[in-house]
């Protein structure tokens, strides 16, 4: 198999315009003859479903939540980037492109990133037109703030609820189309497999979560906007239901999975409190605009704080190590996420951690409250401070917050070409579910941008191109009577029956927790050859144990949350191994992927451009065989790889 990214000809800045002119169109009166399936209703899925419906396609949209408005995009806090340069501080499409490629440690595809930066400005226009209440200045114009990895202020935000507001925008557009009958919405439906006919994706098998009924849905093409796989770690900032199932099933049906080891550990989360914990809560990166990160300089002081014998506020200035400001003076507390996370881990490894568990550093607002006043800080971060107090029981206006890195986002995903089409023709992947734009590390406020770029401004063109290429005679030809649907449905049913029939002794949640521990220990913030080799064996053994000893209560034909969980955990078990294999293969450090064998004396990541400037895309070849690696070389014309320095 040769990977063809289908990058258009011409200079970077003209590629998208050229491509849009060259690709096929479907004339408005023919669009109603096509049916498009969109799985997922977050920023990418919701935006794509609404936009394609507005154009006249018949859309069916699926989500596992009880309403499309609850997709996990809703939890994004800080903001969305766009190269508007409203601040007159030197921003441009080219700078946003450059920051994103550099921030991704030169492991993203230039052409896709450039397009992302290009359409970023239209996203803000679109959202404002929908009524998204972005923060404004007194003059009535839009406000911006800074985010990690950039020296310009290009982030648009709606208090600490930007994701919610953007999602409500997409949801309102989607709701309008549902009301008009142009989108058929399937809430509480989970996709369990992709159906291919003559090699093309032509439908999906879903389970109606309310009744347990297995349903077939046919269409002319399928879009997966099913989010990321951070929950493979068990503890993450993801919603409880986030899963890899759709992507994993697509992978097993022939779609390549790219860079699965590229995961993002977010530096500012509330530390773990104990073993009953079900999830980790993010504190927006925007807090790093005004909060200063520190640990005590000596281990003795840190120990006293851990044991509750010393007030953090009483540590004198000379006893504090503002380690990000010290190590990265030009970016300071706004160093990129991967770098900030690693620095916090190093401090804690050195015995300087301040949380009870030893795993936590301070994020201190004392100085900014003195400088700006409590009211201003409250206006900027009020809801985040409230949330922190609610969870931790401490008041961050009076005592510094404690934070520690946690799994937050996954840059890896289904391999897609420039059209966001996977290696299965007619199967598209958008948003966090694909791999394309963030390389080995995502900059803050870029996930919302990418989800909406894919949904509003890329897929409406490229899906049309695919349908146009198939020709109008093909429209609506495949129906659910096709034998291929029969076969895949049988697989899906067989798996559910198998899960229910094991009747072992251990709960799906318990298996999930054990899997998460292996992945966090060996494929988390620091990875090594031995550790990964060990993890691969451990995951395999755990998977076998799972299929022999899992206990799934209840029946198949009813609302059964444990059955849902068991299916998702089963897929994480398969996927976790792939992730470790990818991390083992990538014998270099880059972005969020830190191989301990490859670091400088100061502990900075050392990339190997000569041997690893490629996308690692894995092909499934069978249950008992190791997957095959395909390499898409990355060529950098405009953003020449350099040592990524934030000093």
């Amino acid at each position: 198999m040769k990977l063809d990214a289908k990058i258009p000809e011409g200079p970077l800045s003209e590629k998208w315009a050229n491509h849009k002119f060259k690709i096929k169109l479907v004339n408005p009166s023919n669009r109603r003859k096509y049916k498009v399936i969109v799985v997922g209703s977050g920023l990418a899925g919701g935006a794509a479903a609404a936009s394609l419906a507005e154009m006249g396609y018949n859309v069916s949209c699926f989500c596992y939540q009880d309403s499309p408005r609850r997709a996990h995009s809703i939890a994004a806090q800080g903001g969305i980037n766009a190269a508007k340069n409203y601040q007159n501080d030197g921003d441009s499409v080219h700078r946003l492109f450059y920051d994103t490629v550099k921030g991704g440690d030169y492991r993203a595809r230039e052409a896709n990133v450039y397009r992302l930066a290009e359409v970023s400005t239209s996203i803000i226009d679109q959202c404002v037109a929908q009524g998204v209440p972005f923060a404004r200045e007194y003059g009535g114009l839009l406000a911006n703030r800074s985010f990690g990895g950039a020296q310009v202020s290009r982030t648009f935000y709606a208090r600490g609820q930007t994701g919610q507001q953007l999602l409500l925008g997409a949801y309102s557009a989607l709701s309008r189309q549902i009301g008009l009958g142009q989108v058929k919405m399937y809430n509480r439906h989970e996709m369990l497999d992709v159906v291919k006919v003559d090699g093309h994706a032509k439908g999906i098998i879903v389970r109606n979560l309310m009744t347990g009924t297995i349903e077939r849905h046919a269409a002319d093409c399928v879009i997966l906007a099913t989010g990321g796989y951070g929950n493979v770690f068990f503890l993450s900032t993801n919603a409880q239901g986030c899963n890899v199932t759709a992507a994993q099933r697509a992978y097993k049906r022939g779609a390549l999975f790219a860079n699965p080891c590229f995961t993002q550990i977010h530096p500012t989360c509330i530390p773990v409190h104990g073993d009953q914990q079900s999830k980790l809560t993010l504190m927006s990166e925007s807090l790093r605009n005004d909060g200063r990160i520190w640990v005590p300089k000596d281990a003795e002081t840190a120990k006293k704080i851990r044991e509750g014998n010393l007030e953090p506020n009483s540590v004198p200035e000379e006893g504090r190590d503002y380690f990000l400001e010290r190590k990265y003076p030009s970016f300071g507390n706004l160093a990129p996420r991967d770098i900030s996370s690693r620095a916090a881990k190093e401090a804690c490894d050195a015995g300087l951690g301040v949380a009870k568990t030893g795993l936590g550093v301070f994020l201190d607002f004392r100085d900014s409250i003195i400088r700006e006043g409590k009211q201003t800080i409250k206006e900027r971060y009020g809801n985040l401070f409230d949330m922190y107090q609610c969870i931790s029981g401490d008041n961050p206006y009076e005592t510094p917050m404690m934070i520690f890195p946690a799994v937050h986002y996954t840059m890896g995903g289904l391999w897609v070409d420039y059209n966001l089409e996977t290696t299965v023709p007619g199967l598209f992947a958008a948003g966090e579910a694909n791999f394309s734009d963030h390389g080995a590390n995502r900059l803050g406020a870029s996930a919302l941008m990418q989800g909406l770029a894919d949904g509003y401004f890329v897929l409406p063109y490229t899906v049309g191109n695919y349908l146009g290429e198939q020709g109008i005679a093909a429209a609506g030809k495949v129906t659910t009577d096709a034998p291929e649907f029969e076969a895949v449905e049988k697989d899906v049913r067989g798996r559910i029956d198998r899960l229910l029939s094991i009747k072992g002794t251990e709960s799906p949640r318990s298996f999930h927790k054990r899997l998460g521990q292996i992945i966090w220990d060996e494929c988390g913030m620091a990875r090594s050859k031995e550790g990964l080799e060990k993890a691969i064996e451990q995951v395999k053994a755990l998977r076998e144990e799972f299929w022999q000893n899992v206990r799934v209560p209840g029946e198949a034909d009813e609302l059964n949350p444990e059955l849902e969980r068991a299916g998702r955990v089963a897929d994480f078990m398969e996927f976790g191994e792939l992730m470790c294999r990818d991390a083992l293969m990538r014998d270099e450090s880059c972005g969020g992927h830190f191989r301990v064998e490859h670091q400088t004396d100061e502990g900075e990541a050392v990339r190997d451009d000569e041997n690893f400037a490629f996308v690692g895309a894995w092909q499934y070849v069978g249950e008992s065989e190791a997957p095959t690696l395909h390499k898409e070389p990355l060529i950098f014309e405009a953003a020449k790889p350099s040592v990524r320095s934030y000093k």
Partner: protein
Amino acid sequence: MKLTLKVWRQKNAQTKGRLETYVLDSVSKDSSFLEMLDILNEQLIADGEVPIAFDHDCREGICGACSLTINGIPHGPDRATTACQLHMRRFKDGETITIEPWRAKPFPVIKDLVTDRSAFDDIMQAGGFITARTGSAIDANEIAIPKDDSDYAMDAAACIGCGACVAACKNASAMLFTSAKVAHLNSLPQGKPEKDRRVLAMVGAMDEAGFGSCTNYGECSAVCPKEISLDMIAQMNRDYLTAKVKTFFSQKSA
């Protein structure tokens, strides 16, 4: 902590439900309320029983999925806090806690603590949007919006659509939810062209879904995890009246 839990169990929409009593040992006071339910469910699975179904997802107070009536109060005792953000340190060791689903006719129980809130989506589909086709927008800074107006729209838009307002209301009225959306869009210049259509359509859909009328108890706002203000209802009533009068006269002149 040791707790006694009285939990609503109901196999499905067709069967009758009842409160079951469970005893739970060694719950950490740092656990969230839903983590406490996770522990109970693990215990039930180990005992060979069917675990309790409840809606939840983000567990950080923003998705609006969680929907538990705790000791008779939607989302429980803490002000401005969803059930998922409620922590066990709020309760006493040895306490008995009653957990029920949302109690409102338009939100029928599907199973245990899970209810069907799709009536909210129906209201949104009737008019909870600004018609703005993808690609047709003008530059975002073409329209200046006074900060106060924008802040007010954001106060309204903070609604998470959880339905606690309906569950708390004696009449099962959805006025707070509907008015929050109407206020968000009607107070912005972009929302003005559809202002009248929107309020008429959304109120119409609300009535059609069987929600009760508002008799100014104010329980809705008191339990709202995002503290949506009763002012929103007042504004919706004004907008509704204006729209009604306008339609009346435009029909006459036509």
